């Protein structure tokens, strides 16, 4: 039966900004959905506020709205575009919640829009815990015993019945936000109270603890004929108690017999039917009691999820793509299996390999956060690896994490006695370190044959997995003890996941010595194919992974290949924005070259086998990249490798790869080093006559102090070769610098071993970010972004506006000249990002990075120029003049003041709410030079105020239209705020102020009330401080412009409270002016929405080249 013919226009909702628990896996699923729907000839209308996504590239939909995902905006779009159907099951919890809201507001009914994929009833049955319990019961399966609670009293009473510990799960939150385990009433009051607040329905489920049970997940798909298939089973190595997103997971399930597995399958199928997910995917989580096999259904998601992205990459079965087809009426048997081409999608993939996913955490960025892993997801990214056995996949996955201390090691003596007891006690508490701790504890096996059982008792990790880690320890001993490394031993170690680097450490020799011994012995990896069917049918999709096995499956080719290195697991500072550039390179180079992607992040579009001609799912280490290079070299001619698009991870490999003979395309490793090495960069600046803040490079903290005293405090300190401002701080004194040195020495992170860079910190500067392409002769200035926050806040965390709203044409000209001089001096071929600071009318160069930057996708969306594609072409030798002639680049670039330009504001989205101190308070949300944001949104409109308003609505709850504003400003700003604050008063807001600010306002005739500063503490009669008022929800907006160190600190307290309470916060006078105008505009009416395609048409018709 063909697809439905009653659907012509489909609206798709994306997942908005990247946040913990909802990352770029929804760009992957959304992009697939849009592709499929367009290919089916349907008109696609897309809404997503996240400009860094591939799905919001104009070619993936007919009308792309980069607008806030709110009920109001959705209604405006529906009104304008009149879709027949709304598909919301591919945009995570955000899209699902948005769809529920519009459905409940009767908007869908009013405009006759059908919710496809899953009905409102199905979504409710799946998501509402009480209803879902009923579903499970009707399926003849078990749930954990539980009670639904709406008040604290109900929570306490329910816990008495269930007995502690109890699991707290708020309803309708994503990534398990607000859930946790309460061991006693105090815990319960803390976690449960927060849960009631997080739940939009003030509803919390309290349930019996199944802590320590085995945890499994099934990914299912169902079509309208009620055909159901299980795409993948996933087993969590960490037992129940750790969120599946934070757990090491394995596919397929490895410790169930067929009977036990089929029982899960039967229950899973019964549940998807009972919930009524008509067409599409869902995932269901199970707990299995390890001693009895009792099965409990934990939960289900009636939508495509992070796990389904993982399952798609793990099996080669593209769940989102197929879900989109099912949603428009196809059945599974009508959809071909892409990989085989000859068999249908109505089957269950079978794997002849093992997949391991390892989470990547960012606790180092939130030192105050409680590092214990719970049922609330805290990881920011993940890496996946495939191998022909568990150990091979585990070893590869762990090294894919690209973080020091996160691979197995065999340093020191195996633990014994008390040290072992202490280690086992640590293992019992799940943290980021647990897997390493388990491996270390298992080293005790040489003295204690029962240690596997002891580790099992401490962790609940299945003994089969423990035995596999034990095997790796045994091999490590063999490698250490062998007189020489012969072929069988090398092969044995490699086939159990050992990297050359690990073996080199065991043998106390160089990694290169291991590599050459290995190659000499003929121990090189082969590449197998992910084919969905364990080789039963021929595969036509070159999706490969390495293994130390016998037969290589890489096919010869004739076209020249371009290898593109991706960016690895998402982390703060290196995420979807870099994947965007890699994907664009692949898409644009496909016509001329065989594009070959290497990456290990299962969430991304780059690891969709549809993106490049060949996909290698491999760690981004020197060893693994070289192995792919050698295999591809044997397969056909190689043009070269692109290392400048995936961020710092591939960039840091550039020199070694080049030294090993790999042709690096675009900017050379020497040029990359020129930008990174302070001395060489100094020469570039000097030659070009460009000013930079005074700086120095220090090896060790003593030298750093010397430099800091020479150039004068405040200084900006950071390790070199970092992304996302890792370890970057503003230091105001010698004491602070000493403290910095001590803290950095204690952090186990490879970046902290790098030399320290010391820069003079410019107070009061406007920061400017620039993205440009240089072809060796000509430059194309892609975009100039003016930061809204003051200098000193990492560019990734501050809002910025493009085109700049306060810079003159002359400023733009200076920026153009400086950028071009830098590009020429460094020797850039391709993209370059420059950060400038404009202070006292001097344009200082802060840094230049000859690589794709985090802002490339934002610039591309805002200007409508395919910057990343053009850059990839330049890296392969095209000139800017040629690309202009082709029409890929416009004649005029961002150095020309464009009166018609639409204004785009990028706002950062921060994860502070998710991290709690051990006491359960929100972590301090101070913004600084170290990046902490996980994602971004774009507000796009005709004027800065409207664009700004949209960016705020997309990032946080939006600006208030009425209520109370707290104002506290630096003295130098007092003059500037009087007008906007007066306007706020006229617009109906009540004003609270600190004493100094109140006096100024009063003399301008603006009534305000005084409130105590945080530093003053509560008054004699318990008068609250501003922080108390924010915490208690009395404040709707905070205006706080800081100056100098003391005020900065006080402001941060306020900011922390505002962040935790989702209160809008304004920190600059420009921002205040913008916010006031935005509020004014919003009070007049709703947002106007405009698709990127309409914007492009508008601009084209208005713009006349000068």
């Amino acid at each position, binding site marked *: 039966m063909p697809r439905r013919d009653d659907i012509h226009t489909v609206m798709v909702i994306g997942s908005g900004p990247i946040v913990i628990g909802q990352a770029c896996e929804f760009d992957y699923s959304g992009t697939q959905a849009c592709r499929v729907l367009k290919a089916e000839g349907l008109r696609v209308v897309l809404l997503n506020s996240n400009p860094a996504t591939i799905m919001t590239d104009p070619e993936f939909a007919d009308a792309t709205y980069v607008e806030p995902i709110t009920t109001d905006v959705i209604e405006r779009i529906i009104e304008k575009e009149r879709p027949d159907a709304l598909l919301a099951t591919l945009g995570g919890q955000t899209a699902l919640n948005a769809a529920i809201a519009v459905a409940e507001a009767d908007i869908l009914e009013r405009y006759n829009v059908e919710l496809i994929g899953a009905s409102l009833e199905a979504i409710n049955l799946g998501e509402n815990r009480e209803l879902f319990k009923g579903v499970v019961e009707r399926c003849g399966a078990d749930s954990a015993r539980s009670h639904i609670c709406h008040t604290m009293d109900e929570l306490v009473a329910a816990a008495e019945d269930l007995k502690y510990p109890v699991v707290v799960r708020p309803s309708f939150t994503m990534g398990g936000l607000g859930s946790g385990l309460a061991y006693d009433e105090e815990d319960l009051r803390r976690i449960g109270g927060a849960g009631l607040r997080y739940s939009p329905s003030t509803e919390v489920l309290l349930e019996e603890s199944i802590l320590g049970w085995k945890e499994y997940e099934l990914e299912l798909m169902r079509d309208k*004929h*009620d*055909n159901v*298939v*299980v795409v993948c089973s996933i087993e969590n190595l960490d037992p129940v108690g750790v969120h599946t997103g934070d757990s090491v997971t394995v596919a*397929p*399930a*490895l*410790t*169930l*017999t*067929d*009977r*036990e*597995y*089929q029982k899960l*399958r*039967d229950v899973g199928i019964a549940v998807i039917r009972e919930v009524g997910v008509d067409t599409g995917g869902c995932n269901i989580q199970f707990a299995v009691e*390890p*001693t*009895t*096999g009792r099965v409990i259904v934990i939960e289900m998601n009636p939508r495509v999820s992070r796990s389904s992205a993982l399952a798609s990459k793990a099996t080669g079965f593209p769940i989102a793509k197929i879900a989109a087809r099912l949603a428009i009426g196809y*059945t*599974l*048997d009508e959809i071909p299996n892409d990989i085989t081409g*000859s*068999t*249908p999608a*109505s*089957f*269950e*993939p*079978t*794997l*002849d*390999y*093992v997949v391991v996913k390892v989470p990547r955490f960012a606790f180092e960025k939130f030192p105050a956060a409680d590092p214990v892993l719970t049922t609330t997801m805290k990881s920011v990214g993940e890496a996946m690896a495939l191998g*022909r*056995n*568990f150990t091979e996949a585990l070893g590869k996955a762990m090294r894919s994490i690209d973080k020091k201390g996160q691979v197995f090691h065999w340093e020191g003596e195996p633990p014994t006695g008390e040290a072992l007891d202490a280690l086992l006690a640590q293992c019992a508490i799940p943290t980021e370190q647990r897997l390493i701790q388990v491996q270390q504890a298992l080293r005790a096996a040489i003295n204690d044959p029962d240690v*596997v059982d002891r580790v099992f008792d401490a962790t609940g990790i*299945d*003994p*089969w997995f423990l*035995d596999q880690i034990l*095997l790796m320890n045994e091999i490590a001993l063999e490698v250490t003890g062998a007189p020489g490394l012969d072929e069988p031993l090398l092969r044995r170690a490699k086939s159990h996941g050992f990297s050359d680097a690990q073996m080199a450490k065991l043998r106390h020799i160089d990694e290169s010595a291991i590599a050459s011994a290995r190659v000499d012995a003929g121990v090189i990896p082969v590449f*197998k194919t992910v084919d969905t*069917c*364990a*080789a*039963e*049918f*021929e595969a036509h999709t070159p999706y490969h992974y390495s293994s130390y*096995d*016998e*037969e290589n499956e890489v096919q010869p080719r004739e076209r020249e290949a371009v290898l593109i290195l991706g960016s690895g697991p998402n982390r703060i500072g290196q995420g979807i924005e870099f994947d965007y550039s890699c994907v664009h390179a692949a898409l644009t180079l496909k016509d001329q070259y065989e594009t070959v992607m290497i990456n290990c992040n299962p969430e991304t579009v780059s690891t969709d086998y549809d993106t490049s001609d060949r996909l290698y799912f491999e760690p981004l280490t020197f060893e693994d990249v070289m192995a792919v290079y050698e295999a591809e070299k044997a397969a056909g001619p190689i043009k070269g490798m692109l290392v400048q698009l995936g961020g710092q991870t591939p960039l840091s490999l550039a020199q070694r790869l080049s030294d090993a003979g790999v042709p690096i395309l675009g900017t050379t490793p020497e040029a990359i080093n020129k930008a990174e090495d302070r001395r060489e960069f100094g020469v570039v600046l000097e030659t070009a006559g460009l000013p930079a803040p005074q700086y120095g490079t220090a090896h060790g903290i003593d030298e750093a102090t010397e430099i800091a005293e020479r150039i004068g405090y405040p200084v900006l300190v950071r390790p070199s070769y970092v992304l996302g401002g890792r370890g970057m701080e503003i230091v105001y004194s010698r004491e602070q610098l000493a403290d910095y040195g001590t803290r950095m020495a204690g952090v186990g992170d490879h970046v902290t071993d790098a030399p320290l860079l010391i820069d003079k910190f410019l107070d009061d500067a406007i920061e400017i970010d620039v993205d440009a392409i240089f072809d060796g002769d000509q430059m194309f200035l892609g975009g100039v972004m003016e930061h809204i926050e003051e200098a000193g806040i990492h560019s990734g965390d501050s809002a910025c506006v493009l085109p700049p709203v306060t810079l003159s044409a002359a400023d733009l000209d200076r920026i153009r000249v400086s950028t071009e001089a830098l590009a020429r001096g460094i020797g850039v071929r391709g993209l370059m990002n420059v950060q400038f600071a404009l202070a006292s009318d001097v344009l200082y160069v802060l840094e230049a990075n000859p690589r794709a930057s985090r802002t490339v996708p934002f610039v591309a969306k805002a200007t409508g120029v395919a910057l990343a594609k053009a850059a990839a072409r330049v890296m392969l030798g095209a000139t800017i003049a040629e690309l202009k002639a082709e029409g890929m680049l416009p004649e005029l670039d961002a150095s020309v003041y464009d009166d018609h330009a639409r204004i785009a504001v990028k706002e950062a989205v921060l994860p502070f709410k998710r991290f709690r101190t051990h006491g359960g308070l929100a972590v301090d949300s101070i913004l600084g030079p170290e990046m902490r944001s996980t994602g971004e949104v774009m507000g796009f409109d005709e004027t800065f105020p409207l664009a700004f308003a949209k960016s705020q609505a997309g990032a946080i709850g939006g600006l208030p239209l009425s209520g109370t504003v707290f104002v506290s400003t630096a003295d130098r700003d007092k003059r500037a705020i009087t007008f906007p604050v007066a306007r706020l008063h006229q617009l109906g807001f009540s004003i609270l102020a600190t004493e100094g600010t109140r006096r100024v306002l009063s003399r301008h005739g603006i009534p305000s009330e005084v409130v105590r500063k945080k530093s003053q503490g509560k008054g004699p009669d318990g008068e609250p401080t501003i922080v108390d008022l924010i915490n208690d929800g009395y404040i709707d907006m905070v205006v706080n412009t800081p100056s100098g160190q003391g005020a900065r600190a006080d402001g941060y307290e306020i900011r922390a409270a505002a962040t935790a309470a989702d209160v809008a916060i304004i920190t600059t006078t420009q921002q205040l002016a913008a916010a006031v105008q935005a509020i004014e505009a919003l009070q007049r009416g709703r947002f106007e929405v405009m698709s990127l395609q309409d914007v492009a048409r508008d601009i084209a018709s208005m713009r006349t080249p000068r």
Partner: protein
Amino acid sequence: MTNEPAVLVLENGDVYRGEAYGARGETLGEIVFNTGMTGYQETLTDPSYYRQIVVMTAPHIGNTGMNDEDAESRRIWVSGFVMREPARRPSNWRSQRSLGDDLAEQGIVSMSGIDTRKLTRTLRTFGSMRGGIFSGDALANDADLLARVRAAAPMAGAHLADAVSIDGDYVIEPPDGVERVAHVVAVDLGIKATTPELMAQRGIKVTVVPSSWTADQILAREPDGVFFSNGPGDPAAADRTVEVIRAILDARVPLFGICFGNQLLGRALGYGTYKLRFGHRGINQPVMDRTTGKVEITSHNHGFAVDAPLGDASESPHGYGRVHVSHVCLNDDVVEGLECLDLPAFSVQYHPEAAAGPHDAAYLFDRFLDLMNGRRTLEGTR
């Protein structure tokens, strides 16, 4: 795991060197691959694998050990077992013994540590072939081993059901609390334990009888239906059982066949059978029930198939009226089920009893019951 070498030699001369596992010695047979990720215990004990060396495509085998509950028959039937990575330590709450212990105890020469994917790709490309595993004292130079492999009997033309069947009959009653609603005689051509169990759960008393029983012996038990099980060997070599089936058809006693039983029903109706290049062995095979249009994910283990026309119902060449291909494999359009439209008989090529595998097709036992109760009309339920 051991460091003792083992060699796998294929009829085409390919040689794989790995490690000995289970018993040492020599074993010969048809080498086939199974793609199931679970269910190695059921596979090992499935009599249909008699005289076959089974290669598991899933890399980790033996993780959950062996227990007394999941075996599908009284012993391990495969003639050899090949896997990439046997478990060193089984882990499961029901595990009683390790896989290696059971294989060794039952004398099953096995091996591990080879590129099973390469082997699978070879079998997919060139078809199932004879092979041998050699270890311990049986090791010799490759040419000698190849000669021994090539001297082994091929699967085509092999009559094997009698070798795996039982000597005497036995009865399985419905479990306590389930009312007895029918009596079936099940002819054991290599029957799996789950089959009579699933019938018994539906209130069917099952008398399992040896493959050597004649139609008269079967009908003397006055069954409401007769069942022909799965089993090993070439259906073309099973003339005696084909004659039994024809007698049952003539008697108009409701008949249900699975796997080998399906091939023999096909032959009884007058269709041919043929050997597939590499067969279907796995638990993820999509089969369409052409009566309902629904797809079920099914367990397969067959190297032969029935050659019947896929289109509209055809006339049985042996005069049993119209026959409809009721089920078809969506991967390759192989006939997966037959339904007589003028006689109370039907069969499927795959395994509704699963074990190992999904339970999607268990409804077929209900269909059999309906057929016996006359609730299902001969025209089917279309």
